[in-house]
Structures are given as structure tokens and as C-alpha cells.
């Protein structure tokens, strides 16, 4: 099965996360267990508030689990590291830096010389087709372009694991489709392990080798669905019977959880 024959890259073991809030304790995750394999593309779907972002933040090292642990390459995660990059839904570009400076940001922190950082940054800016906007500030870019910069910035430091939290959630349908196929192209070229959160079931199926469905809060894994559709996947893929079958199945599973939240 896709990805399962390669080594485990990220191991998530019984992860529990509780938040202390003014209204009392909130259990965001209640024992998440699964593995992500080397170079695998995994998508996560689940109703709002089921702990998807929390899980991503824990893998990224921005948040500590209350119980359980996360291993990357067998090493326990204790904080953010250069082996894991994050792309946020709100782009999180530094508004006072140009596109080039944004992409160079992580490279400079790694101690690379200005020249080397610039070379690498330009390579990735080209990869996301923003070579004409190298000197622009984020406020001069559209949402789709901003997210491309954020992706280039994450790629530039060459993390082995790429964590993406609804990166295309704020974009219109056309831009989203385009960025999806660009992302797949670069994923095939650069070989990375991708952990991608989305609300969009079609997006999950078109991108992922496996789709993880989460229960409503407190979050746990409800089901993991193998997407046995070969790459390259295109818009036509969305019309194939297998795609529709998977979509129906995943959608009904997610919908049950939506309903359970509303009750």
C-alpha cells in the first residue's frame, strides 16, 4: 500500500492534549495514534475543533502534548526544528520583508551567507512562479501569491517533513486547484513527507496517499483511508468512479462527526 513499505518518519503515540481555559479544562486530543511514512502525503479531515491544528502544532514542536509523545526519525520532539516546516493558513509572512527577504529568512538563520541564501531563495521563488515579484511586499500580493511565498519559504530551508494547516482554505476554487497541482508537482520532485490539514474532502483525496478522519472533539483517529488512485492526479481524476466512491465514503464519515458536534 502507498507509503507503507517505507520507513516510519513521524510516529504519533497516544497523544493527549488538554488546555486549561477560563471555562475549565478542554480536551483537544484524546489519544491520537498513527504513523506517517517517509515521503508520504497524508491529509487530515475532521469537524472544526476536533484538534487538527493542535496535533499539527505538537508535531511541529510549537505545543507540548499533555500525555504521549511524537517521534520524528525515532527522536522525541521537544521543540521546533529545521527538519519540520510549517505552512499556516494565515500565510504568516513577515509584512516588513519583501518576498525575497521572507524566503531568505530561515536560510539566514541557518548561518548561510547572503549570496548563498539569495541563490536558494530565488530557486524556490521560481519554483512557485513568483520571479516577477521578488522585491514586492506581502501587501502587494494576492492571497494565492502570499501562500506561494509561504510555501517557498518553508521549502527553502529544506525540511524533511512539511506540515500544512489548511494552507489553501482562504483561497478561491481556481487558485486552490492550481496550488494543489503545483504542490503535488513539487512534492514529487522534492520528496518530502507531507502532513496536510483540510476541510475539503476533494482536496484531501486529490493530494493524499492516506486520509485520516478524526472524531469530533476530543480528537482521536476515527478511520484511515488509503487512496489507491495512482499519481499524477488531475482534474479528470475527480470524475473517476473510484474517486467518487472514496469521496462519498469519507464525506459521510466526516458528516456524521459534524452532526455529532451540532447535537
Amino acid at each position, binding site marked *: 500500500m502507498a507509503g507503507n513499505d517505507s520507513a516510519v518518519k513521524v510516529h504519533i503515540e497516544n497523544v493527549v492534549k488538554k488546555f486549561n481555559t477560563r471555562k475549565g479544562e478542554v480536551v483537544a486530543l484524546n489519544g491520537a495514534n498513527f504513523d506517517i511514512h517517509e515521503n508520504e502525503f497524508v491529509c487530515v479531515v475532521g469537524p472544526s475543533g476536533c484538534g487538527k491544528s493542535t496535533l499539527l502544532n505538537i508535531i511541529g514542536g510549537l505545543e507540548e502534548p499533555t500525555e504521549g509523545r511524537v517521534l520524528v526519525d525515532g527522536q522525541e520532539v521537544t521543540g521546533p*526544528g529545521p527538519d519540520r516546516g510549517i505552512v*499556516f493558513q494565515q500565510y504568516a509572512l513577515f509584512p516588513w520583508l519583501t518576498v525575497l527577504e521572507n524566503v531568505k529568512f530561515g536560510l539566514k538563520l541557518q548561518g548561510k551567507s547572503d549570496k548563498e541564501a539569495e541563490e536558494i531563495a530565488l530557486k524556490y521563488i521560481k519554483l512557485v512562479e513568483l520571479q516577477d515579484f521578488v522585491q514586492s511586499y506581502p501587501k502587494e500580493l494576492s492571497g494565492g501569491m502570499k501562500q506561494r511565498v509561504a510555501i517557498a519559504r518553508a521549502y527553502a530551508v529544506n525540511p524533511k517533513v512539511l506540515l500544512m494547516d489548511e494552507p489553501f482554505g482562504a483561497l478561491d476554487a481556481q487558485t486552490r486547484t492550481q496550488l494543489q497541482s503545483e504542490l503535488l508537482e513539487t512534492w514529487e520532485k522534492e520528496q518530502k513527507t507531507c502532513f496536510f490539514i483540510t476541510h475539503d474532502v476533494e482536496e484531501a483525496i486529490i493530494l493524499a496517499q492516506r486520509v485520516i478522519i478524526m472524531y469530533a472533539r476530543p480528537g482521536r483517529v476515527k478511520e484511515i483511508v488509503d487512496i489507491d488512485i495512482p499519481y499524477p492526479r488531475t482534474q479528470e481524476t475527480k470524475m473517476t468512479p473510484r474517486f467518487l466512491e472514496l469521496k462519498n465514503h469519507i464525506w459521510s464519515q466526516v458528516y456524521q462527526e459534524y452532526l455529532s458536534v451540532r447535537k
Partner: protein
Amino acid sequence: MKEKKVPIWSKVPSWAWALISLALAIALWLAASGTWPAVFASPEKVLNAFIERAQSGLLWEHVWASVSRVLTGFGIAFVVSIPVAFLMAWYDPFRHVVEPWIQFIRNIPPLAYVFLIIAALGIGQTSKITVIFIAAFLVMVITIYQGVKGVDVTLIKAARVLGATQKDIFFKVTIPASTPFILVAARLGLSTSLTTLMASEIVGGDKGIGMMIQQASGYYQMDVVLLGIIMLGIIGICFEKIVRFLERRFTGWQETIQQ
């Protein structure tokens, strides 16, 4: 469908508006000095007072005394308020203790504590600068604190993920992200300094625009009084222009609503 009419005044260029505004102001001034000649000296008299004092150099001595006082008090306040604001944003215990003090003193008119400071520091330059420092510091520390507190956490997260240390985050994220607030604070601080200057100069000394106004009013030289007031207005506008220039220079990256 009604056609939208473009108002005729939208075609008048902005320099022409400035001229119209100035001309009207002078007309009003003339009218006022015609009606209450004992209070409002005429533009001509004020101009004469200006020429006379500018030539003797006396005016510039007063202006320099005031401007250097304001800039020193403001400058020290600026340098001190930045680290204090950061400490407040980062260490809750510090903020819990200090913020109530700041809020309490901030609402007291400086004139009220001027005498306390004079009793402590004497009537010289130090006490004048101290009064300005206190008032400017209080305004700026609050504004900068709010800016630091409001730095988008996602940006800090993004920086951490890219390998930033605490020090990197401070210099490469927090400082640039709060620059707009620091500049707003500078603007508020300068105008507060100017306001407080009057309180600081009211109690004596020999040089300063405040002194000039006070002495002149004692002799009923209303032309000099008005001259002093106008000079303060001009200084205020100059400060404002400088800060606006810095804002354009350093915070041009900010998202703004285009008109």
C-alpha cells in the same frame, strides 16, 4: 439613473486649499484684532515683534531653550520606555505591579506634580526636563506596550519554525512588528512633551518660549504673547512632519486602506 455629480471643489488642488485656509485664518485674525485690539495683536504687530526679536537673536535663544528641553526630555523618555514596555509585555508580574502606577500617574495633569519635582530637584534645567520626561514616558510606554502585546503570534510561531532563537525573535520579529506603534508613541510623546513644556516653564527660569510668553503677558505685550503661541504651533507641526516622514520611511510595508 441619476448621474453622480462631481462637486466643484474636488478639482481644487491641495496647495490652493492651503492658501485659502491660510488667507481665511489671517482674515479671521484681522477681524479679531479689529474687534478686541487689547487682546489680539494685529498680524503686522506680531510680524514686527518677530523681526525685532529674530534679529536680536533673543527669539532663537528662547526657541532653542524650549526645543532642546523638549527633545532631551522626550529623548530620554523614548529610550527608557522601549525596554520598560517590553518588560511589561513579557513579564506578567512586572506588568501587574507597574501598570497601575502608570495608569494612575498618567491621568494627573503634569502641572500638579511640577512643584513636587521642583522641591526635589530645584528650579533649574533638570526639573524641567524631568517633568517632560515623566509625561512623555507615561504616554509612550503604554502605546509601545500595546504594540508589543499585539504582535501576531503566528509570525512568532513562523519564525520559531524557521529556526529563530529568542534573540532572533526579538530583533527580527518583535521589533519590526512593533515599529509602527513605536512611531505612533513617538508622535504622541512629542506632542505631550510640548504640552508639558508649558507646565515646566511656568515656574521660572529665564529662557524658553513659555517664559517669553509669561514675561510678555506681565508687561501686556500681546504681540509677543501671540508670537510665542504661533512659534509653539510651528514647532509642533515640524515635530509632526518629522515623525510622519519616519513613518512613511519605516512602516511603508503596512497594509493601509487606499482612498
